[in-house]
């Protein structure tokens, strides 16, 4: 009797498990759909796009929008800005964050409790829009400077937390052994701790890189010169459709040529998310690790 109940339970289970599986696969499909639509329709001709909207499989293909975008200068300028900000920003941010995390997790530091309160409180609370704006625009004179896109994000306490959690897991003996051997904290950190912390540094570095790559808030506030726009703002500009031809192609604008506005939006999206999608299969696990460690607090 016991046996038969067991069998009945698994039969019921099978239906439920199948339902759960179907649900989640369907949801995954829905999550992916917009990406598919954007990529496949970026190769559709302008005529089809304005007539039918997006289709799962466009009825007419064309590279016109890509050619138009890549023949102008702005896309290269925007790529340059985004890459510069991401590379320089991630480097500075990762270094300052890792060093700070080591500093604040050391038992030798006085007032650690207070320091960590100050560190995390301001991140949840936010520095306040108006003060930040006056500081960066009027006091530091960083308007239309790429540093305005880098410095405000160069230290993120949430990402520091991931490093701190990781450093706590490293046995104290490592840094102690290094300091006994006559190394100061500086060389102990760079020679001993940092090499051990490589996996955490990869997670935090990639989180920073994504943050910089996707940001447009700072550009919206502090960049008025549209030639200095990062990719994200180029996308915004293309969506607003004002003087598109002159903006994208500059002095070589051929006003007789129709601007493929709808296609351009898709092209910019694809060029913006392209590098992320290409890197995604290889970097996904670092994000998963970082978020699983620090995500609760973020």
């Amino acid at each position, binding site marked *: 009797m016991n046996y038969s109940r067991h069998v009945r339970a698994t039969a019921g289970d099978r239906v439920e498990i199948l339902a759960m599986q179907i649900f989640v696969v369907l949801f995954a499909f829905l999550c992916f759909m917009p990406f598919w639509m*954007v990529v496949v329709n970026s190769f559709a001709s302008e005529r089809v796009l304005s007539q039918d909207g997006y289709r799962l499989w466009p009825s007419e293909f064309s590279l016109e929008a890509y050619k138009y975008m890549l023949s102008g200068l702005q896309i290269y300028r925007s790529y340059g800005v985004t890459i510069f900000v991401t590379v320089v920003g991630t480097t500075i941010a990762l270094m300052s964050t890792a060093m700070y995390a080591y500093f604040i997790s050391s038992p030798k530091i006085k007032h650690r409790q207070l320091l960590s309160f100050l560190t995390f409180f301001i991140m949840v609370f936010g520095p306040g829009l108006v003060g930040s704006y006056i500081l960066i625009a009027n006091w530091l004179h960083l308007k239309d400077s790429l540093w305005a896109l880098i410095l405000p994000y160069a230290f993120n306490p949430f990402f520091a937390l991931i490093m701190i959690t990781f450093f706590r897991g490293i046995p104290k003996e490592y840094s102690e052994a290094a300091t006994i051997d006559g190394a100061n904290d500086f060389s102990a950190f760079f020679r001993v701790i940092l090499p051990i912390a490589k996996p955490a540094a990869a997670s935090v570095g990639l989180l920073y890189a994504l943050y910089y790559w996707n940001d*447009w808030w700072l550009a919206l506030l502090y960049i008025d010169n549209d030639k200095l726009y990062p990719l994200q703002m180029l996308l915004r500009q293309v969506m607003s459709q004002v003087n598109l031809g002159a903006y994208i192609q500059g002095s070589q604008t051929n006003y007789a040529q129709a601007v493929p506005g709808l296609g351009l939006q898709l092209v910019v999206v694809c060029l913006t998310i392209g590098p992320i999608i290409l890197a995604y299969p290889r970097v996904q696990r670092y*994000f998963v690790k970082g978020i*699983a460690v620090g995500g609760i607090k973020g």
Partner: protein
Amino acid sequence: MTECQVKRLRLFWNNRYLYLLGLPGLALLLVFGYVPLFGHILAFEDYRLDKGIFGSQFVGFKNFEFFFASGDWLKITFNTIFLNFLFLVFGLGSALAVALFLNEITTKWLKKLSQSFIFLPYFVSWLVVSMMALQMLKSNGILNQLLGLFGVEPCMWYMKPHAWPTILTVIYVWKFAGYFSVIFLAAITGISPEFYESAQIDGASKMQQIRLITLPLIRPVFIVLALMAMGRIFFGDFGMIYGIVGDQGMLFDTTDVIDTYTFRALRQLGNFSMSAAVVFYQSVLGVVTILASNAVVRKIDADSAMF
């Protein structure tokens, strides 16, 4: 100098390299985190660019009176709380479901592929999302094409403010279900398999196992995440709302939140004092909710508390 001071100084000098390591982070934190707090002074001034913070006229609570008299405060406060509440409930709820269901997929490649797809939207910016949303929702967009199959007339979604809390919630779930499910999955993976083995011996069904083992054991994670979100309930997601809705005044009634309101006051109207007053109002409410939620989290699970 007293002996104690000398001792303290020597201790500081001995650890000078350690302090040097912390210096860049600390400097960035102070300059970009704490210096801007001066901005709150503007809330009590009639700020003029030429006179600066310390030269402008002090006007007391006049900026606040203006803000509260305008009636905008009720609208944007309600929208901020209401939208954040929807995001919290449906965002965490769907992420929990996704995590539980993903866990039931035994085919390895299918599980991996599903998780990758669900996590993917987290990696794109709100402007990209906005562009995708526009294409879905415009008059000949996918949504209207689909509705057309069922004989429903196409709808101008950007003229229908009442549909937008739902639309934004769907977009939020799409973007963050994967992110939060990563956290839930990590918690589920941490559960000892022995619990499930003994439950199976006792003849518990899959649903019973989920209800009686998985859910109770990951409940603290869920509660902590929810409390963290509650702490920030007065802070709207600027990137999301401004990215998707932008300056379409038609939709402000249901979508304008405190953060988009202060942005417009600052960047489009150039009214620094008004913007500062609203930011100050938000900050005061924010301090209360953040400290309260942190205190509750500390009681439940001290390790998860922020401070």
